[in-house]
């Protein structure tokens, strides 16, 4: 064994120079980063730029500075849509979580029946939102006569679900719950299944009844899953366009015009691209707050045992 050779140390060069292993790692992530920068981050930046101009038919006509933002946040339509979004998101979130939790608890065991019913429950989630909302619209429309049959017996044969602010919002919420409960179910099911069954056995032997077990074991241990479901559903509900565009068209009287739809209308109906982009940026900023939550959860999740 030849002695006295210099000990090779890891090359200590500039802070930013790449180590050889890092260079290889970057080869792995580069395609991903590039495609995201080009197709997501790039356009977003472009939109940000647009938001400072008056845009007419895609031509930047004059610089407006923050005017677009001011116009957007003072516009009654946007303010109305924020109210509608708040009501929609909160009610839909509550119901979706409740239904999702009920489904998860009911279908937790991997019996053959449960697996089948889970698949069925997931159907509304995997089909197109467009198609789902379309079919619901067909159900709620007076054309079909379906609702008249259902509501007739309670004297509401002429009630138009989609033409009354209250019931239109209810229909919108129904659409969300119908579709997204399955998502909540999946997330919560994952949480449920990560609870070791021996904890329930232990609790049973320790004398805890079913409700006590749910309250003291299941709920606290699912905290993280519940939070994940809340944050992800909230981001989804705040931004969703299809439900209101297809099901209610935002009506009646803007009662179901969510910010997603307001954004769409500004951009694709009124063609106020400057305003639309300003609103998009504002919505994006709000999303970032929700994302911050998401990140906090994520960090905590990595720390969790």
């Amino acid at each position, binding site marked *: 064994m030849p002695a006295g050779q210099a000990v090779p140390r890891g090359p200590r060069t500039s802070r930013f120079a790449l180590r050889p292993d890092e260079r290889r790692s970057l080869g792995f992530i580069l395609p991903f980063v590039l495609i995201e920068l080009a197709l997501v981050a790039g356009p977003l930046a472009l939109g940000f730029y647009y938001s400072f101009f008056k845009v007419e038919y895609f031509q930047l006509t004059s610089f407006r500075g923050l005017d677009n933002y001011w116009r957007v946040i003072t516009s009654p339509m946007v303010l109305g849509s924020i109210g509608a979004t708040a009501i929609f998101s909160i009610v839909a979130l509550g119901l979706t979580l409740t239904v999702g939790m009920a489904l998860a608890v009911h279908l937790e065991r991997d019996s053959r029946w449960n697996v089948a019913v889970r698949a069925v429950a997931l159907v509304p989630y995997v089909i197109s939102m467009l198609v789902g909302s379309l079919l619901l619209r067909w159900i709620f429309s007076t054309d079909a006569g379906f609702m008249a049959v259902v509501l007739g017996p309670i004297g509401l044969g002429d009630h138009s679900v989609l033409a009354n602010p209250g019931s239109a919002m209810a229909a919108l919420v129904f659409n969300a719950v119908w579709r997204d409960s399955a998502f909540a179910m999946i997330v919560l099911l994952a949480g449920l299944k990560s609870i070791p069954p021996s904890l329930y*056995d232990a609790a049973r*032997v320790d004398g805890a009844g079913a409700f006590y077990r749910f309250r003291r074991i299941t709920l606290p241990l699912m905290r993280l899953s519940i939070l994940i479901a809340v944050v992800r559903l909230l981001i989804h509900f705040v931004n969703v366009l299809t439900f209101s565009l297809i099901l209610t068209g935002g009506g009646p009287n803007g009662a179901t015009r969510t910010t997603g739809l307001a954004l769409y209308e500004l951009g694709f109906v009124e063609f106020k691209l400057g305003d639309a982009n300003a609103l998009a940026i504002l919505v994006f900023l709000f999303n970032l707050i929700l994302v911050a939550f998401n990140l906090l959860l994520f960090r905590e999740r990595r720390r969790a045992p």
Partner: protein
Amino acid sequence: MTSVRFRSVSKRFGALVALDSLDLDIEAGEFVSLLGPSGSGKSTTLNLLAGLQEADEGEIWVGDRLVNGVSPDKRDIAMVFQSYALYPHMTVFENIAFPLRARRPRVPEAEIEKLVVRVADLLGLGELLARYPKELSGGQQQRVALGRAMIRDPKVFLLDEPLSNLDARLRMRMRHDLKSLHQRIQSTIVYVTHDQAEAMSMSSRIAVFNKGKLQQYASPHEIYHQPANTFVANFVGDREITFVDGRVEMLAGEVQFAAGEFNLPLLAETMDFSRIAGRHVRMGLRMESLRITEQSGSRAIAATVTQTEPSGPDLVVFASAPGGAELCCRAEAGARIAIGDRVNLELVPEHVHFFDPATGNSIAADIHSHPDRSLGGRTMASNNQ
């Protein structure tokens, strides 16, 4: 402190018979181990007793109460799980207090605190009450699980391999501590393990299971020294037993074991081998069944050393006999024995076991002439309680 009785209890999972007509009586205050390989039905027995599963047939009595169909929380039984099953979101205090809080009528908080502190002190957990389970070492977690079981002074303790997640060192210490604990609290304990050393060292009686069937139920001494069949003989003891098939023959007025390549004289004060003369038997040889001797010839087997294993104070010598049987015996740690050496091994007839080659059952009863000897272990074990 209550007795437990199983009466013809069976449990099936589909076609699989997990437990086959089990009869088992556990006296109040006993420390009984259920010992057996994986899948032999030990946990099933425990779960049936705890009420986590329901028996298909048979009756289970706790004290003089038939508990079939009684839900776990009403059986007044405490259980410690292999994984400890500590509630990860609760502190040690809350974990230990859980059984008190789960029950109606409510125990006042002040009372709970007093009880928890007392149990924690008993287990040396006093300092750790505010910690979460993940902040504890394996041994500490294990003690918290014990504390949670002890807090409500149950009729019976069930422990399902509570030590198997610990490292070798800690396992040894906890074994000792558990035994002391039992001596102090004197409650009925049913203990599941697949580690024979654990069962041997702690129990007043051991129930050996295989494939859902109870094989033998006796004191550790009896289990070791008078195994009911080849399965038990092979399963207990630190090392596997060596089986040699042969015939017991009367040769030149002496009882001999004839195994083709070698003959060995069988002579022991307490046994009468002549009773089984002429029979085909399977002989079970443990480490202590052979010893190295100076004398050679017909009274010993000349074997070649194949391996030596230092084992603490001893040196375990492996040697192959003529005919290929792998034998092993103990020697002094300092003994100068090397691989390839020839050694002469002689039989220690008191420590040899005989089985029927067809059924595998022990034929010890046919040999033993001093009946009291066979109860020795039993008597001693009772002293331990």
